[in-house]
């Protein structure tokens, strides 16, 4: 076996150019595949984190009636709210909570109007749950303007030609069904990384909103960040076990598309890797087939002098595996280096910033890849190499030694 392996290894390097081409294809294939996968994971991961930090949080609590119909009157029952606050204060897995008052309304300027959700927040408390305060393009976060400050998203600001310091008119229906239209001053413009969110959500001070709505501290939504995202499920269960008129929902229920993204990523990785391996397999089969056809006389001689078919098959198989696997460590190392570098410093996709923004991605992408994916691709290459060897090896076994030794 040792000699068979030795011959196979040396055969790999007989035609340096051809082996070099396959070698380079394997390296580039692995690198490209893993890099694309890491880029996708990085983008998805960043989008998920950004969505959770700005919009969804780890979990949200609403009155059950609000989930069915997002009306102003469907706020959380004040008695339930008192009990709920106690439970949340005692829950060790919770890092921070924020209460919000929400009403549908319209933002109007001289340049037009847009329907939005007006979210009333306590700025200091909100900062502990979301990172909108940290995503201001211009202005400040509800702490400078004294009367009726408002924070709006970049997309909305662009549509209505607004900027910090400019006034807008907010219209909405109060608790007693009175129509209110009142002036607010734009204190800041945020970019959450998701154009849709930025276009549809404006933030005002909760006290201001409750005064205007003539409600007494109505709370429609409680957003919660846990110590870790994995704690969300258990906290949701604990809350739902205690209350019947409210419902806590984890991030992947509040935003199902985020949950699907997580599930789809695994499948996408396998599809990308399979396509690359499939393409490589054809290259390897082609090269080995050429090698077997070129060496017809030599293979005929081996069969003549007593090398049995099992050994000939093994030799071709080893050659194919060596040809494929010799390049794999370099491809993996190159991938690891590139992914680590861009994982630390990021890739700036500023030239497609608008498209990225509209789809909810930040233009700065940090590549990311689990160690297990390196293992999976190595395993896939080994399997692909073994499969690739079968056809050329079978071809070699079909040679008639008497004819093969005389082949030109």
């Amino acid at each position: 076996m040792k000699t068979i392996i030795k011959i196979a290894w040396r055969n790999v390097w007989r035609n340096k150019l051809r082996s070099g081409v396959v070698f380079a294809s394997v390296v580039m294939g692995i690198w490209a595949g893993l890099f694309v996968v890491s880029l996708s994971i990085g983008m998805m991961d960043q989008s998920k984190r950004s969505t959770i930090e700005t919009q969804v949080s780890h979990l949200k609590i609403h009155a059950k009636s609000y989930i069915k119909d997002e009306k102003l009157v469907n706020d959380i029952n004040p008695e339930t709210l008192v009990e709920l606050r106690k439970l949340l204060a005692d829950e060790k897995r919770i890092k921070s909570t924020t209460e919000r008052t929400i009403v549908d309304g319209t933002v109007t300027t001289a340049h037009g109007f847009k329907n939005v959700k007006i979210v009333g927040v306590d700025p200091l408390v909100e900062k502990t749950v979301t990172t909108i305060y940290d995503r201001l393009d211009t202005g400040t976060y509800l702490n400078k303007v004294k009367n009726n400050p408002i924070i709006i998203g970049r997309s909305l600001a662009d549509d209505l030609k607004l900027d910090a310091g400019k006034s807008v008119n907010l219209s909405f229906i109060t608790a007693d069904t009175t129509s209110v239209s009142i002036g607010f001053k734009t204190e800041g413009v945020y970019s959450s990384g998701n154009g849709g969110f930025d276009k549809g959500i404006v933030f005002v001070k909760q006290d201001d909103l409750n005064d205007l709505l003539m409600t007494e501290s109505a709370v429609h939504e409680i957003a919660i960040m846990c110590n870790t995202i994995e704690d969300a499920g258990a906290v949701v269960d604990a809350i739902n076990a205690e209350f019947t008129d409210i419902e806590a929902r984890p991030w992947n229920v509040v935003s199902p598309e985020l949950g699907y993204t997580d599930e789809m990523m695994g499948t996408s990785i396998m599809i990308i890797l399979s396509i690359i391996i499939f393409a490589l397999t054809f290259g390897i089969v082609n090269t080995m087939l050429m090698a077997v056809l070129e060496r017809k006389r030599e293979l005929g001689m081996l069969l003549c002098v007593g090398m049995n078919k099992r050994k000939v098959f093994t030799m071709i198989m080893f050659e194919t595996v060596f040809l494929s696997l010799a390049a794999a460590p370099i491809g993996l190392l190159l991938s690891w280096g590139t992914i680590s570098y861009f994982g630390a410093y990021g890739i700036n996709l500023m030239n497609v910033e608008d498209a990225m923004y509209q789809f909810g991605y930040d233009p700065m992408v940090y590549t990311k890849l689990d160690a297990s994916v390196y293992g999976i691709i190595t395993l896939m290459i080994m399997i692909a190499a073994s499969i690739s060897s079968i056809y050329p090896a079978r071809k070699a076994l079909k040679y008639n030694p008497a004819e093969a030794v005389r082949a030109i």
Partner: protein
Amino acid sequence: MSVIKTIDLTKVYKQGDYEIHALDGVSVEIENGEFTAVVGPSGSGKTTLLNAIGGLDEPTSGSVFVNNEDITQLKGNQLIDFRMKHIGFVFQAYNLIPVLTAKENVGFVMLLQGTPEAERDARTTELLEAVGLGDIMKKRPNQMSGGQQQRVAVARALAPKPAYILADEPTANLDSKSTENLLDIMARLNKEEGITFIFSTHDQRVIDRARRVITMEDGKIISDERRGE
């Protein structure tokens, strides 16, 4: 004592509606220690005969006995094993393994046989010295002349101590000096060690050195001449 005996050997190839009788009832015995040339024009059947007695090609009918064993009854790996243990081959185009050194090439068949390394090493060294290549043991085929490669091929054929050596046009690609050199070596091995050589050849220099010349035409033996020393 005959080392090879063929009985009424035929080989028929079909080419469309036509049948080509490459061997047409060939019966011949080769004695141990013979130095035999099988000659004849192209298409006479000499290579087909060598293929049949080398177990490389299955005859259409008839038998080939090697040391009293009918090799036409052997199949697949049995036949490959038989060739490995009993027959040495020298090919027109040398057919050495390009990625192995001269010494590794000579030891290759012994390695397939499972000969211990020490024994293999001693035998390959002895054989390469016997064919005058003791100084190029570590060279690969592409670093050798044609004559040197064919001498390595002879050493390789001899290495597993076969019952006989089949050499198919062994001098066809060699110059005169290399041919003489090779024939000297084979004649010496035949004489001193009693190794049986069977050649198929067109080369008059080989025919002149053979002690038995079997002439074929149209798949039949038309003459079988034995010569003295």
